[in-house]
């Protein structure tokens, strides 16, 4: 019984213990080397593509919003009826409401244009999608600044142009007075010359 079992194992060993063909180890080593190089190249390509994608995203985030074309503000959106063409770019010394505020982004090209040609008229006001450039009439700015300074000083004296039109009563009160009664003359219908005979 034991001898039979050993014979089985011996038979199996004779069947299994085959030698690989000549050059098997060298071929396997070459295959491993090729696979290693291919994986290294694949990894390099993957890293390069990921780096390029990240760089593209970063560049897009940094530069696209600034270089996007801004819509041109329609003229009808100016609330005071004063179009941007009418507003002088360089107001009088006290004319700008916020002289210390940084210029709006949309007015950068305007500034550049001013620097080049010294033009005083704004040809087209370009503003960003969410940045509305507030255009104030210099005369209003002068008055507003004066009112603000007087309010700080504790005494507001309205200038004649706003306060009193004729020196008697304030302009606001005068505007509230009842209008003069409208007199409608009697309507008479004269007959046409051709109708007199008939």
């Amino acid at each position, binding site marked *: 019984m034991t001898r039979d079992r050993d014979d*089985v194992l011996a*038979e199996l060993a004779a*069947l299994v213990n*085959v030698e*690989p063909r000549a050059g098997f*180890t060298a071929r*396997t080593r070459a*295959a*491993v080397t090729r696979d290693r190089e291919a*994986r290294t190249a694949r990894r390099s390509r993957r890293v390069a593509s990921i780096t390029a994608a990240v760089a593209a995203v970063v560049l897009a985030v940094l530069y696209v919003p600034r270089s996007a074309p801004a819509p041109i503000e329609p003229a009808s959106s100016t609330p005071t009826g004063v179009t941007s063409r009418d507003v002088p770019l360089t107001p009088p010394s006290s004319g700008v409401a916020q002289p210390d505020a940084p210029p709006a982004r949309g007015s950068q090209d305007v500034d550049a244009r001013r620097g080049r040609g010294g033009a005083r008229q704004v040809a087209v006001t370009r503003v960003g999608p969410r940045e509305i450039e507030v255009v104030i009439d210099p005369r209003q700015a002068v008055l507003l600044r004066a009112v603000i300074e007087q309010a700080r000083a504790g005494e507001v004296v309205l200038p004649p142009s706003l306060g009193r039109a004729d020196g008697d009563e304030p302009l606001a009160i005068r505007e509230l007075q009842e209008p003069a009664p409208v007199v409608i003359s009697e309507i008479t219908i004269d007959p046409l010359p051709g109708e007199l005979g008939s």
Partner: protein
Amino acid sequence: MNERADWSAAYLVSGADELDREFDVRMSESGTLVYRVAYSVLRNHSDAEDVAQEAFLRAHRRFTALRDRDRFRAWLVRITWRLALDWKRGRRRRDRREEVVARLARPVPNAEDDLLESDRARRLWAAIDALPDKYRLVIVLGAIEGHGVGDVAALLGVPAGTVKSRLFEARRRLQELLR
């Protein structure tokens, strides 16, 4: 700064080279074992060589993940065994598809094929194929290179007593099948 970067790169490259050298040594030591394990399943030299190469490729790709390098041979044997079984299943499907072509153009058998085709050998392989997987692997590994119980236990990562009992049962079943 550049010196540090150069040093790091050199360290990484030297580490990779060291790993490759170690793998190369282990591949030289285990080549025949892997080939024989594959052959014991496939019984075809060309397929066995292909499977052995594929096993080495997979082992090389995952070599850095192998924590216990002393378990390399056992790890490699398991990879090869599974690959060979998968390959055999695929070959069966392929053979069924190409059965007609193979019948028309059957290759001229050589001496090894004669041995395989011998009645005794064919019966022995059939009996081994009929064994459950755990018995089959034990008896094949025991037959390869005269591995003892301790060697097979180390290759399979199981206790020696388990190998002994499996080997005993495998022999008993083989005897019954060959009777």
